[in-house]
């Protein structure tokens, strides 16, 4: 290994400097590892482009189907250029009890050949002042003498110099109940003395022209705390401050809910602890090159950008970390995520091991460990009241009081609860609401941002209430939904107007005509007559799920080489949904073909835009935003995490703009030059070919105004010859609306929905502003960011989905067989149909798991005890999901310019409540908890 200049030459890109440590994001290891199964898969890989419009297969298909090393867990030190080949291994010891004092570890069962070379304990970290990044809280390792905060809490890390000693030791210790020493006396859980992680309250009272009160209009409200419980004022004041107003309207709703003209569904719904169960358990590899003071990391993370910053801060704050001058982070493909690789503490444990070893260290959870320590979604207890006018059947108000189990270490449960509350209304117009949610610590493993982000829990309960109300009010379930559907001009529970058209009526109308729905009663009679040992049921639900975080910050770059190759770079990490495929495909509308290269998870070259962020985008004041935005390099957020439902709309936005600008300023002018030179009397008249929007691609060739089609390769060559625009890099920011800015491009001001730009020109470009084949920053001249008050809108981008479920229940066992499902989805413009279909099918499967099978108990029998695996945690198999009868309808876009919607989560929601309703139809019993197991059903039959 050389010095840091050698690092740069090796293609790492300096990301930032945090606390004196230069952080580099490194190219994906895929294709770069020393050990390669095949010399070259590029021949087959290039076939992905198919007919240049529709990909023949996924961009990463060849690698995945041939077992190439592309995942973090695949890599060993000998695979990575510059690393020593000798690999060391580590694993973490964890407690299984949270009601005893931890008294230390006992490794006496290890023989000499199993002994670790290094043992890291809390004492070790304390001496060296090594701590978690602040996001994860204190006590990276629990010290003896303390009561654990949660089952599964980490107490020590053992490092082994070779695989065999590691393996033998792990086999010896993993289920050995003598390894962790506890006090004999039982101790109260530490949660009893802790305040909630967060509390949210969303109150709204509609008005005629403007709301009488709403978060968007009036602001957010927060309680006081007494004895670690949130306490709200008992009385309000319509003319008082924000809190007093909110309480006034809340109290009014709570009084009015007893109105005898209203029918109220007043029920408590509970959900379970769920394991995301991505098939690649968390893993890490790393090496600290002390000679060059460079720490190299291979992490499996959905949020590498946050990792860069937090890892840098973690090292900078420790004296030991001061030996680190450079941090090089590789972010390979992920074998699934579902939120469980987003902001997890795991890679930081890996990083710590490197401080105590000269060898590369592999840290990899097995499945028992993943259950014990990986991020979960824990129970929601929702006390709901949904009130309807008995006459009109219109919703009059929604009240909820949700208690969320936030697990033993704070993570994303706060935002999860907020999003769950703010999206709960789903497709319905709610004129008055009081939505309260509190997140409490518990002794369960960490709960974070699992797929669904709280909305599966809240929206499923909303649908269950709608179905029950239909029954009580003796109205058709779809008709009840129609009566209450959200319409143009309506505001959501936060007082904001959701973006776009709402096609809920269209979906309801389609579902109503489906034969399974139309014939459900007659078919029930017939089916049960022919299958006397079974009960038959049909259920319907619809949901509309928000996508976006209110602080989306995608970056993309697209460039065309002289040979017409298209290279795309995006910050997004591939977890499975096919982001590289969709990003590579979407450029074809502007560039005539699919990309040759799509580079993910590395923010290569984005540094050219020199962007900085300073404050939390959610907490920044309007004044501060106004002040900071005068700096042309300032943005509310530089990088965003790769979360579900974020690539189709947000990542696509920047890639689309890049490709469009290349057509506008590069390929189209090149075409015009060719046409006017060869096919026009250029010397005698001024050419008028129209602007680039009049051009279109067909069979990989561009034409306009009747002039001969020209292929991409020819255009690219010409664009390079002319020194035209051949590469565009952009950054954008979205707080429920895109920031916009003005940039000078070739002497003309252009208003674009971005806030950062860099341009690259072709071979012959020669000027300070136009460097050839190199991106150069173009500072914005003006910018307009969405106002900070829009943070209170909470959700405005929505993607609706409805699911009809037909099932049969065995009377003998209570087991549910899914016979048929039909899903209606409004995905906006579909980038790659097969990928959207895959999301529907996978979402259905995960929803079925939520509804019928998946659950972890609390306490010492729960996941934290380290004994859970797939033998005890039932993930749906093909036979459980009606695999041959998954049908769907994708609503076509309303126009060519419809954006793509983030649908990765909504597809798993309506199936849950549809199943619960179908069970009711089958056996005339409503359940208010998830999962509804065979044993639950059997009891009722």
């Amino acid at each position, binding site marked *: 290994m050389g010095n840091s200049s050698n690092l740069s030459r090796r293609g790492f890109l300096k990301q930032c400097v945090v606390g004196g440590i230069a952080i580099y994001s490194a190219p994906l290891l895929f294709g770069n590892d020393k050990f390669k199964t095949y010399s070259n898969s590029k021949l087959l890989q290039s076939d992905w482009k198919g007919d240049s419009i529709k990909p023949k297969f996924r961009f990463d298909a*060849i690698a995945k189907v041939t077992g190439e090393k592309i995942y973090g867990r695949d890599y060993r030190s000998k695979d990575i250029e510059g690393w020593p080949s000798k690999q060391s291994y580590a694993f973490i010891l964890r407690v299984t009890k949270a009601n005893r004092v931890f008294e230390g570890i006992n490794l006496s069962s290890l023989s000499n050949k199993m002994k670790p070379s290094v043992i890291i304990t809390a004492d070790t970290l304390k001496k060296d002042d090594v701590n978690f990044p602040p996001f994860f809280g204190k006590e990276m390792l629990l010290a003896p003498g303390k009561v654990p905060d949660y089952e599964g809490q980490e107490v020590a890390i053992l490092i082994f110099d070779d695989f065999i000693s590691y393996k033998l030791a792990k086999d010896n210790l993993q289920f050995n109940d003598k390894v962790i020493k506890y006090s004999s006396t039982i101790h109260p859980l530490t949660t009893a003395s802790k305040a909630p992680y967060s509390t949210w309250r969303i109150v709204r009272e509609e008005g005629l022209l403007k709301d009488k009160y709403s978060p968007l209009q009036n602001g957010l409200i927060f309680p006081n705390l007494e004895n670690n419980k949130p306490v709200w004022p008992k009385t309000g004041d319509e003319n008082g401050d924000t809190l007093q107003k909110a309480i006034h309207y809340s109290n009014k709703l709570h009084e009015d809910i007893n109105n005898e003209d209203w029918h109220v569904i007043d029920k408590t719904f509970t959900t379970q602890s769920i394991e995301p169960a991505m098939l690649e358990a968390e893993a890490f590899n790393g090496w600290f090159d002390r000679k060059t003071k460079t720490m190299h990391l291979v992490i499996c993370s959905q949020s590498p950008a946050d990792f860069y910053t937090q890892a840098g801060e973690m090292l900078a704050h420790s004296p030991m970390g001061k030996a680190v001058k450079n941090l090089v982070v590789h972010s390979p493909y992920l074998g699934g995520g579902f939120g469980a690789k987003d902001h997890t503490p795991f890679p930081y444990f890996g990083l710590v091991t490197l401080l105590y070893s000269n060898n590369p260290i592999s840290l990899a959870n097995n499945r028992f460990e993943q259950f014990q320590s990986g991020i979960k979604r824990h129970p929601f207890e929702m006390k709901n009241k949904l009130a309807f006018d008995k006459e009109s059947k219109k919703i009059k108000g929604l009240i909820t009081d949700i208690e969320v189990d936030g697990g033993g270490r704070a993570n994303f449960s706060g935002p999860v609860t907020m999003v769950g509350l703010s999206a709960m209304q789903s497709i319905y117009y709610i004129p008055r609401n009081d939505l309260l949610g509190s997140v409490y610590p518990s002794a369960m493993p960490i709960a974070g941002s699992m797929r669904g982000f709280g909305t599966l829990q809240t929206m499923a309960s909303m649908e269950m209430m709608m179905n029950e109300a239909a029954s009580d009010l003796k109205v058709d379930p779809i008709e009840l939904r129609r009566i209450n559907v959200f319409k143009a001009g309506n505001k959501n529970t936060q007082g904001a107007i959701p973006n776009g058209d709402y096609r809920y009526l269209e979906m309801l109308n389609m579902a109503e005509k489906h034969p399974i729905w139309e014939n459900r009663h007659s078919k029930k009679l017939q089916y049960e007559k022919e299958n006397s040992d079974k009960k038959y049921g049909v259920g319907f639900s619809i949901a509309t799920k928000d996508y976006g975080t209110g602080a989306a910050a995608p970056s993309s770059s697209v460039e065309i080489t002289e040979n017409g190759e298209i290279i795309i770079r995006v910050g997004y990490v591939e977890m499975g949904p096919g982001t590289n495929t969709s990003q590579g495909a979407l450029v074809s509308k502007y560039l005539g073909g699919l990309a040759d290269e799509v580079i993910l998870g590395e923010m290569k070259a984005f540094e050219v835009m020199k962007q900085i962020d300073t404050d939390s985008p959610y907490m920044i004041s309007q004044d501060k935003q106004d002040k900071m935005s005068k700096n042309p390099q300032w943005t509310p957020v530089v990088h965003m995490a790769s979360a579900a439902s974020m690539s189709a709309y947000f990542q696509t936005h920047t890639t689309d703009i890049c490709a469009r600008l290349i057509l506008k300023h590069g390929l189209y002018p090149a075409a015009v030059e060719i046409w006017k030179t060869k096919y026009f009397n250029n010397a005698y008249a001024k050419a008028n070919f129209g602007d680039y929007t009049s051009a279109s691609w067909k069979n990989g060739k561009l034409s306009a105004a009747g002039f001969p089609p020209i292929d991409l390769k020819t255009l690219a060559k010409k664009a390079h010859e002319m020194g035209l625009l051949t590469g565009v890099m952009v950054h954008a920011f979205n707080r429920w609306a895109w920031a916009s800015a003005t940039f000078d491009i070739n002497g003309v001001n252009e208003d674009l929905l971005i806030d950062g730009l860099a341009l690259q020109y072709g071979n012959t470009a020669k000027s300070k502003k136009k460097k050839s084949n190199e991106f150069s920053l173009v500072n914005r001249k003006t910018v307009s960011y969405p106002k900070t008050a829009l943070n209170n809108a909470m959700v405005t981008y929505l993607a609706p989905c409805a699911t009809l479920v037909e099932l049969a229940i065995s009377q003998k066992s209570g087991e549910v067989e899914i016979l048929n499902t039909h899903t209606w989805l409004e995905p906006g413009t579909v980038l790659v149909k097969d990928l959207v279909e895959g999301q529907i099918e996978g979402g259905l499967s995960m929803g079925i798991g939520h509804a019928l099978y998946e659950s972890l108990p609390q306490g010492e029998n729960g996941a934290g005890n380290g004994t859970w695996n797939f033998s005890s945690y039932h993930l749906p198999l093909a036979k459980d999901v009606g695999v041959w009868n998954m049908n769907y309808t994708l609503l076509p876009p309303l126009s060519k310019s419809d954006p793509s919607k983030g649908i990765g989560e909504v597809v798993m929601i309506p199936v849950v409540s549809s199943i619960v309703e179908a069970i009711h139809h089958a056996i005339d019993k409503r359940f208010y908890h998830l999962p509804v197991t065979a044993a639950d059903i059997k009891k009722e039959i």
Partner: protein
Amino acid sequence: MSTLKLTINGEKNPAVDIPDEVMMIEYLHEYKNLTGTKFGCGEGVCNACVIIVDNEDGTKEVKKTCVNSAASFNNKKIRTIEGHAKKDKNENLVKLNPVQEAFIEQFSFQCGWCTSGFVNEATLLMEKLKTNPIKKTDVENVIGDALGNHICRCTGYAKYYEGMKKLILSTDGLTR
């Protein structure tokens, strides 16, 4: 400690001494650096880790590598995911096997972690059907029997199953 002599993807490997405790998947990963076979659960439930074993008597089977020791494969001929595609003399990949082709064209997988297990199981099924064709009406059930215990968290299985069904029905000699 045991001796392990293996033929992996047609290549004979010299005998090595291997601790009895080492599972086959650990041998593949840590000793042979063949990481295409994936670790899913470690208790023989998810089937992500299965490889094909070609027995001396001509029979073939899939075996889980996470719960079977490396030593238990002594003298066996095994096929892993890395061995299915054809390479030219320069080790460039030039052709996938029909199952791999079917799966990629059907967009059968997403994150891909379960894919090597599905490919191995499905490849074995195709080979078995060549010698024991089935009725067209049994295709769905046979696919379910073969692949039904493989866990996938991403896809809902539908495109794996559709891909296999299309492949079986379009391959001469597998159905009657």
